[in-house]
């Protein structure tokens, strides 16, 4: 089953076409990494998929439910109400975590399930405790984000996203603000999620991690998908641009 599907997506910023005709399908349990140089449009793609930016062309859907429908000969977004429903299908871990600084770890994780999904408080707390344990954050329940390391913040952010029980989790360069050692603790958590068959789309610069964790790697450059395939396929690609990009990492 396709959890997420985007077709012919285009996005223009100040007359610059940052995304040109991108199509991507993510099926259940699949882990897709998106790699590519800065400015290739990777982050923009995630921002379109998460309604943080509006698409200029193309369509996308979650669980077969469209976010953009044909209307009067053109395409337009579905109603605000419908978008709210679609938002429940995905979660997003930001590059800068974007935790709420005035909430404790526990409240960061539990507030949205309680206030947005109107779920039972005790139940949400029980689940949050399990998530905190899974993320290796025991003892940090009452800490504020300012008291945590970057790696801990990112794990709280992942827990916060997971607490909403999304069908798919997007990661926008989750480790690019972290030092190599701390990067590993975040990658470990993502790896565990992959082992549990969580559907994920990860924008990353960690090539070896992408190779290791992904079912499929998508290589983007200048707003188009240049190449994609299994990690083996991509790392042995005949495509010149792919080879040139990955070559920089091999030569390190």
């Amino acid at each position, binding site marked *: 089953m396709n959890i997420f599907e985007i077709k012919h997506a285009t996005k223009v910023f100040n007359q610059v076409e940052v995304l040109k005709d991108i199509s991507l399908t993510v099926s259940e349990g699949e882990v897709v990494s998106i790699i590519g140089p800065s400015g290739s449009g990777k982050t923009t793609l995630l921002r379109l998929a998460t309604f943080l930016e509006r698409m200029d062309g193309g369509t996308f859907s979650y669980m077969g439910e469209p976010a953009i429908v044909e209307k009067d000969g053109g395409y337009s977004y579905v109603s605000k109400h419908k978008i709210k429903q679609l938002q429940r299908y995905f979660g*997003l871990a930001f590059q800068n975590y*974007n935790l*709420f*600084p*005035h*909430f404790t770890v526990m409240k960061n994780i539990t507030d949205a399930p309680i206030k947005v999904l109107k779920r039972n408080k005790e139940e949400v707390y029980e689940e949050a405790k399990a998530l905190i344990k899974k993320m290796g954050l025991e003892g940090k329940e009452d800490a504020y*984000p300012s*008291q945590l390391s970057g790696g801990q913040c990112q794990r709280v952010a992942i827990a916060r996203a997971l607490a909403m029980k999304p069908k798919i989790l997007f990661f926008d360069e989750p480790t690019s603000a972290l030092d190599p050692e701390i990067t590993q603790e975040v990658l470990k958590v993502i790896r565990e999620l992959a082992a549990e068959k969580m559907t994920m789309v990860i924008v990353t610069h960690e090539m070896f991690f992408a190779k290791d964790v992904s079912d499929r790697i998508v290589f983007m450059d200048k707003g188009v998908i240049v190449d994609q395939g299994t990690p083996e396929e991509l790392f042995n690609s005949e495509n010149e641009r792919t080879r040139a990009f990955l070559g920089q990492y091999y030569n390190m």
Partner: protein
Amino acid sequence: MSMQLILTKLLLGMGVSVQLFVLTLVFSLPLGLVFSFGRMSKNPIISNITKVYISIMRGTPLMLQLFVIYFGPYYWFGFTTSTGYRFVAAAIGFVMNYAAYFAEIYRGGIESIDKGNYEAAQVLGYTKVQTFFRIIFPQVIKRILPSITNEVITLIKDTSLAFVIGVSEMFTVAKAITSATKSVGAYVIAAIFYFVFNFIVAFIMGKLENKMGYFERESAE
């Protein structure tokens, strides 16, 4: 005039000052938030009207504003007002003036909050109202509290301006006593009262600032 009588009169005056102070805060703090929304509105008509309003309120003397509000009804519409209107006029003037200042403080605070907070809230499905009151506003309060404290302290002293339209607040009373007793003693006592009032308010605001700092205090580890 006995000392006791002077003190009693001054305390009564102070009661009026405190009433004016409390009323001003109770109405101007929320009203300022409404004005700040108006100022930040995407609708150019609303934002420009608010901008002009704030500009006038901050650009003309409060004393003049009090005169306009007090004498306006008579000179513009021929209404004769009762003496009770004095206090009402003063309260309206203070609320309108302070709301303008608070609006700009709120706006500065709201605009300083990281955009990422709005994006995270949106992705998690919070409504706009929830996002503002649960996520943004508590952080704004924390940031603007020192500026609010400043205004609150200024307000205590500004209440003496109600003297110009004959409100019998503490300064008006002190002046009357001074004329009657031909001694500046009442002024000295009034000064002490203002100072103590300020001291208490500054103390409370300091405590509040401390309390609000909870989420930005680094841990010991």
